[in-house]
C-alpha cells in the first residue's frame, strides 16, 4: 500500500498576520481614485465653506445712505459700521461689565462691610419678570472705573444665594437662600495687597470666609463700594425656520445699611455712577442711588459676567472660530459616501469572497477595515479642521472681521475633536454598510442619523426642545466638540445650537462619546452579522 503525499507548494508561506491584513486594506483604499478624491473633496468643501462664511460675515454692508442721494448702498470704514468692538476682561476673554456703582477710592489695605436687607425688581408683568435669578447687588472692589478691569465682589443674588465673584468668570457660592428684612445678609470684602477675601454672615457677628482671590497687578488705589445690576431678560421662541429672541432690560434695587469701612478711604462722600454706557433702566425705575440715615438704596441694570457669543445674546458679528467649522457637515457627507463604498464595493464586486478566503477570521477583516477607514477619515478631518482654522483666521485678519477670541486649548479641542468626529463617523458608516451591504441604504441611514438631526436643530426647523434632545441621543451629539465657548452657570443666555449661537446640550467629549457608543454598537452588530451570514 502506498501512501500518497498530498501536494505542497514549494513556495514558503508568507506572513498572514494582522499587519498584512491592514496593508491589504490600505492598498484597497488608496488605489481607488474616486475614494481618495472623495476625501480631498471633503477637506476642500469644509475649508471652502469656512472661508466663504468668514468672508460673507466680514463683508458687513452698512445699509443705505441716510442722505438719500440716490447713490445706493454706501460702504463705510470698518470702524464706522459693523458690530461694536468686543469688551475684554483681564484674561482677554469677552465680558459684559455694566452696573451702577456707589463708590469711594480705597488706598492700600482695608475692608468694607455692609448689611443687605432687600433685593427687589419691578413688579412682574406678562412679558417682564421682576428679577432674574442672577440679578445681583453687594459690595465690589475694582481696579479702576474702566469697563473690563479686574474686580472681586461679594453679592446677594435673587435666586442663587450669596456669591463671591471675581474677574468675570470666577464664582463661589456662600450662604444660600433669598435676602429679606427678616433674614438679612452681611457681606465683607477685605483687601490685603492684591489678595481679596470675601466673608458672609447672617448676624454680623459670626463670619464665614467664602473665598480668597488673587487679583494680579492690583494698584494701591482701587475703587470700592456698593453695586446693583440685573441682566437682560431673554425670551426665546424658535418656530420653524426662524428664532425670535426678545431682550428686555430688568433692574434690581437693593437696600444696604451698616456700611462700615476700615483702612484709608481718602474721599469724604460717596459717588454714584454707571459703569459702562449709561442705561436708563426701566421707566419709573431709573438707575441711581439714594442715601438717608445710613441706608443706601441702589438701583442698577446690566451684568458683570463673561459675555456669551451669538446674535441671540446680542453679540452678533463676532463669531468664535468653531462656528466656521459648519462646513464639517458637508465634508462629512463625502466621508460617509467613501466609507460606505469601502465596504459595499466588496459586496458589489464579489471581492468580499476573496478577502474572506485570504483572511477567514472575519472579525479581523472588519477590524482592519475599521482601522484603515478610521485613520484615513481622521487625517481627512484633521486636514479639514486645520485648513478651515487657517483660512478662516487669515480671511478674518484680511477683511477686518474680529473673531470671538477662543483660548488655545479650546481651539486645539475643536480641531482634534472634529478629526475624531469624522473618524468615528466613518467607522460607524463602515459598520452600518457591513450590516446592510447596500450603498444607498447605508448612506441614507447614516445621513439620517447624523446630518439630519444636526440640520433640523441648527436651522431651528424643529422647536428647541426637540432639537436639544436630538443633539443628546443621536450620533449628531458629537458636533458638541465644535462648541467654542463654555456655558457659564452664572449667566443666563440663549445657549442654543441654532440661531447662530453654536451651543450644544452635552459637553464636548460627552457628545463625542455618544457617537462612539453608536459606533461601538454598530461594530458589534456588524461583526456578528459578518460571521453569521454568507458573504
Amino acid at each position, binding site marked *: 500500500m502506498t501512501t500518497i503525499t498530498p501536494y505542497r507548494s514549494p513556495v514558503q508561506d508568507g506572513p498572514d498576520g494582522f499587519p498584512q491584513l491592514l496593508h491589504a486594506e490600505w492598498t484597497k483604499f488608496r488605489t481607488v481614485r474616486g475614494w481618495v478624491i472623495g476625501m480631498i473633496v471633503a477637506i476642500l468643501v469644509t475649508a471652502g465653506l469656512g472661508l466663504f462664511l468668514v468672508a460673507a460675515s466680514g463683508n458687513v454692508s452698512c445699509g443705505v445712505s441716510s442722505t438719500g442721494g440716490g447713490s445706493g448702498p454706501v460702504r463705510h470704514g470698518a470702524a464706522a459700521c459693523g458690530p461694536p468692538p468686543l469688551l475684554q476682561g483681564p484674561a482677554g476673554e469677552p465680558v459684559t461689565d455694566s452696573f451702577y456703582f456707589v463708590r469711594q477710592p480705597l488706598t492700600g489695605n482695608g475692608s468694607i462691610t455692609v448689611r443687605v436687607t432687600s433685593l427687589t425688581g419691578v413688579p412682574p408683568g406678562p412679558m417682564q419678570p421682576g428679577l432674574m435669578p442672577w440679578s445681583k447687588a453687594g459690595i465690589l472692589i475694582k481696579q479702576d472705573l474702566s469697563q473690563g478691569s479686574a474686580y472681586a465682589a461679594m453679592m446677594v443674588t435673587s435666586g442663587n444665594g450669596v456669591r463671591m465673584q471675581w474677574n468675570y468668570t470666577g464664582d463661589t457660592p456662600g450662604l444660600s437662600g433669598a435676602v429679606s428684612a427678616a433674614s438679612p445678609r452681611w457681606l465683607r470684602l477685605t483687601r490685603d495687597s492684591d489678595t481679596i477675601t470675601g466673608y458672609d454672615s447672617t448676624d454680623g457677628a459670626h463670619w464665614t470666609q467664602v473665598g480668597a482671590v488673587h487679583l494680579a497687578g492690583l494698584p494701591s488705589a482701587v475703587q470700592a463700594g456698593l453695586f446693583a445690576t440685573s441682566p437682560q431678560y431673554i425670551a426665546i421662541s424658535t418656530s420653524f425656520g426662524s428664532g425670535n429672541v426678545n431682550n428686555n432690560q430688568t433692574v434690581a434695587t437693593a437696600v444696604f445699611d451698616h456700611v462700615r469701612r476700615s483702612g484709608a478711604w481718602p474721599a469724604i462722600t460717596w459717588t454714584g455712577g454707571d459703569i459702562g454706557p449709561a442705561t436708563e433702566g426701566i421707566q419709573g425705575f431709573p438707575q441711581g442711588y439714594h442715601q438717608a440715615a445710613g441706608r443706601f438704596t441702589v438701583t442698577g441694570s446690566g451684568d458683570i459676567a463673561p459675555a456669551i457669543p451669538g446674535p441671540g445674546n446680542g453679540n452678533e458679528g463676532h463669531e468664535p472660530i468653531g462656528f*466656521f467649522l459648519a462646513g464639517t457637515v458637508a465634508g462629512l457627507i463625502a466621508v460617509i459616501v467613501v466609507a460606505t463604498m469601502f465596504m459595499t464595493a466588496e459586496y458589489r464586486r464579489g471581492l468580499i469572497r476573496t478577502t474572506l478566503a485570504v483572511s477567514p477570521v472575519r472579525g479581523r477583516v472588519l477590524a482592519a477595515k475599521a482601522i484603515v477607514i478610521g485613520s484615513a477619515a481622521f487625517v481627512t478631518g484633521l486636514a479639514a479642521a486645520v485648513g478651515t482654522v487657517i483660512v478662516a483666521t487669515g480671511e478674518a485678519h484680511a477683511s477686518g472681521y474680529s473673531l470671538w477670541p477662543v483660548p488655545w486649548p479650546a481651539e486645539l479641542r475643536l480641531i482634534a475633536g472634529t478629526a475624531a468626529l469624522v473618524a468615528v463617523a466613518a467607522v460607524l458608516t463602515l459598520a452600518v454598510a457591513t450590516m446592510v451591504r447596500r450603498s444607498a441604504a447605508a*448612506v441614507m441611514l447614516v445621513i439620517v442619523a447624523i446630518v439630519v438631526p444636526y440640520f433640523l436643530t441648527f436651522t431651528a426647523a424643529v422647536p428647541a426642545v*426637540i432639537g436639544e434632545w436630538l443633539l443628546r441621543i443621536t450620533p449628531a451629539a458629537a458636533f458638541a466638540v465644535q462648541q467654542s465657548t463654555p456655558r457659564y452657570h452664572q449667566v443666563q443666555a440663549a445657549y442654543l445650537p441654532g440661531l447662530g449661537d453654536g451651543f450644544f446640550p452635552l459637553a464636548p467629549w460627552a457628545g463625542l462619546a455618544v457617537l462612539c457608543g453608536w459606533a461601538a454598537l454598530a461594530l458589534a452588530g456588524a461583526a456578528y452579522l459578518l460571521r453569521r451570514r454568507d458573504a
Partner: protein
Amino acid sequence: MSLPLSAGQRSHRAWPETLHAEWTKLRTLASTGWLLAGAVALTVAVSTAAVAAAAVAPGVDLAKLSLTGIQAGQAVAVILAVLAISNEYSTGMIRVTLTAMPRRHTVLAAKAALVGGLVLAAGAVTVLASVLAGRLILPERGFTPANGYQLLSLGNGPDLRAACGSVLYLALVALLALGIAAVVRDSAVAIGTVLALLYLFPIAAAVVSNHHWQRHLEQIGPTTAGLYIQATAGVHALPLTPWQGLGVLALWAMGALILGGLVLRFRDA
C-alpha cells in the same frame, strides 16, 4: 404570426411601452414600497413631534410648523429617485434598458414621470396626514381661535397653497435627485451629493451673520427657496414670493434633469 411593426408605429408606441417597462421595474422592486412608506412615516412622525412640542409665541407659522416633517422626509424621496437610476447601473441592467429603448431621453423622461408621480401620490398622503395632525394637536397646545390662531384648514387659501406646494416640493426634490443620479450613476455618490445640496444651503444661511448673504443663500438654495411655499405668516418679508421660491427649486430640478439627460445621451452606459 405577427408582422413586424413599421418604423412609424414603433415610434408611436415607444412612449407608452417605455413607461410600462419602467413602471414594471419600479413596481416590482421591494424597496420602492418600503421607501414610500418610510417617507410617509418619517414625515408624519417629525411633523407630529414638531407640532406636539410647539409653544405659543408671537409669529408662529402654523402651516409651516405642521409641515416640518417634509424636511426629513425629503431624504427618503431622494433615495427612491436615486435608486430608480443607480440600481440599473450597479446591476448592468441599464444596458438592457437602452438596448430595448435606444432613445435615451425617453427612458429618462419615463423614469421622471413615474418617480414624480409616485412621490406626488405619497406626498399627498403625507401632507394630508401632517395637516390633520396639526389641526388636531395644535389647539391642545394653545393655538386656539381664542388666542388668535385660526385652525388649519385646506379651505383657507394660504394653508391650501402651503399643503399643495409641499406635495409639489417633494416631487421636485425627487426629480432633482433623479437628474443628479443620471449624472453621477453611483447610488452612494448621488445620495451624498443631493443631500449635501439640500441641507447645505440652510445650514450656511443659518451660520452666516451677514443678512445680505443670508438672503442670497436662501434665494438660491433649493430647499430654502422651495420651502417658501409653506410660509403663511410674514410672506411679505420673504426674499421671494412662495411660488417664485418653488420656481427656484423647479429650475434646479430642470437643470439637473437636463444635465442628466445630456450625460445619458453622450456617455457610454
